[in-house]
């Protein structure tokens, strides 16, 4: 069971949230071409380790949050709001 410390609502059960993808991906500009959009939409880093990802707190504040989570241990190290910076640690 994941427990996600929501910055607005406090620690909550994973069942209140929906995973919404890798938060380090940014949408290409309109003139960046098909390869940039293909990479954006389909190709994945899919790390075995730390990942910054979007989770939406649908059953709480409804905000999109950035969560730093480890994809093997499931440890959640940090949670931030959508506009705050959250870096993936080295190794």
């Amino acid at each position: 069971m994941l427990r996600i410390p929501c910055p607005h609502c406090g620690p909550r059960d994973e069942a209140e949230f929906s995973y919404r993808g890798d938060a380090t991906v940014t949408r290409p500009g309109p003139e960046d071409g098909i390869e940039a959009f293909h990479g954006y939409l389909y190709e994945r880093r899919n790390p075995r380790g730390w990942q910054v990802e979007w989770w939406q707190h649908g059953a709480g504040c409804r905000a999109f949050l950035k969560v730093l989570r480890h994809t093997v241990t499931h440890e959640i190290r940090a949670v931030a709001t959508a506009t705050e910076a959250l870096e993936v640690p080295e190794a």
Partner: protein
Amino acid sequence: MPRYSGFRILAEGLRGNSGWQPAWRKPAPKSSYDVVVVGGGGHGLATAFYLAEVHGIRNVAVLEKGPIGHGNTGRNTTIVRSNYLLPENNNFYEHSLKLWEGLEQSLGYNVMMSQRGVINLFHNDAQRNAALRRGNSMRLNGIDAEILDRDGVKAMCPLVDLDNGRYPVMGGLLQRRGGTARHDAVAWGFAHAADARGVDIIEHCEVTGMIVEGGAIQGVRTTRGEIRAPKVGLAVAGHTSTLTDMAGFRVPIETHLLQAFVSEGLKPLIDCVVTFGAGHFYISQSDKGGLVFGGGLDGYPSYGQRGTLPEAEHVYAAGISMIPALGRLRGLRSWAGVMDMTPDGSPYICKTPVRGLYMTAGWCYGGFKATPGSGWCHAWTIAKDEPHRLNAAHTLDRFREGRMLDERGNGPFFWAQ
């Protein structure tokens, strides 16, 4: 090499079972091979078997980081079927099902293939129409499909709650040739048969790097030394992107958890495979007596091989909605596999941007039933350096080209397939 037969069992029984030999050798890796297959699960072993059997390529190594068959091959719900909508998929899976039907004779090994029938229940008009469309698509491609009404469902699986207050059952789509097989025996059978044809199965040998020179694969670095090969095939399920990172390119794969469950052992209760239409749930009964069932993904990427409780609760709830009698049972074990999920729910059996590097990956929920077909098509692609017509559409480039194989029409959400 040992051969397995009823006579042999009788003879060994009289001799105190002293004559059995290991089913495959434990060779040390050589410094080079014609083909290296990474991944000693069902798909990798099947690739090696068909390379040797169909294409005469016997100087092959299968590299496995642990013991064989300890990944998803030993972690699935053992269901075999070919009830897909899109011709590219149902033709491929039907080829795989035909290989299953003759697999025990091909391998000389009992994989306990049991064509006990697979029923997908439907609960409303729209689901019935979708089931009819899928069944018709199957029949147009020469695959067996039948529509059952309520009485037909009741006759095949009397425990299903037809009059569920929220989701009454209208009927089901039945594929009688679908069923189950013994998952471990599939890995052992392919390992035994590939080994007997000269393939080296090298366990406890983890790939740590890919040797790529001038855009072409030259071999792999492993925990047991460097192994050179002009052709390398990947069959590593959820860890595909870990290996393609080493080779220098990204793939449309996310790694997700899928849980499965088994109950305490029971007398015969469910003699077919049944799937629920109003929640993600599927169930069958193993020959040992345990009910084997599973549901959907946990919903977030993970390499953890263990799931969490919200999905377990959903699976149990959906099961009890479909078959209320399950409410009295105790769960025995649960586990999770790491799935290689793709944006359209369909797999890749293809060449890659690196010359000489091939892959069978992106199996989502459907890897076990595809085992022989995946190995057969992967072996063909490796041997001929071009895809067979059955896997010509299952490329990495299909999204760039707008040729998605979107079986369910979910859009590019890996975790929603």
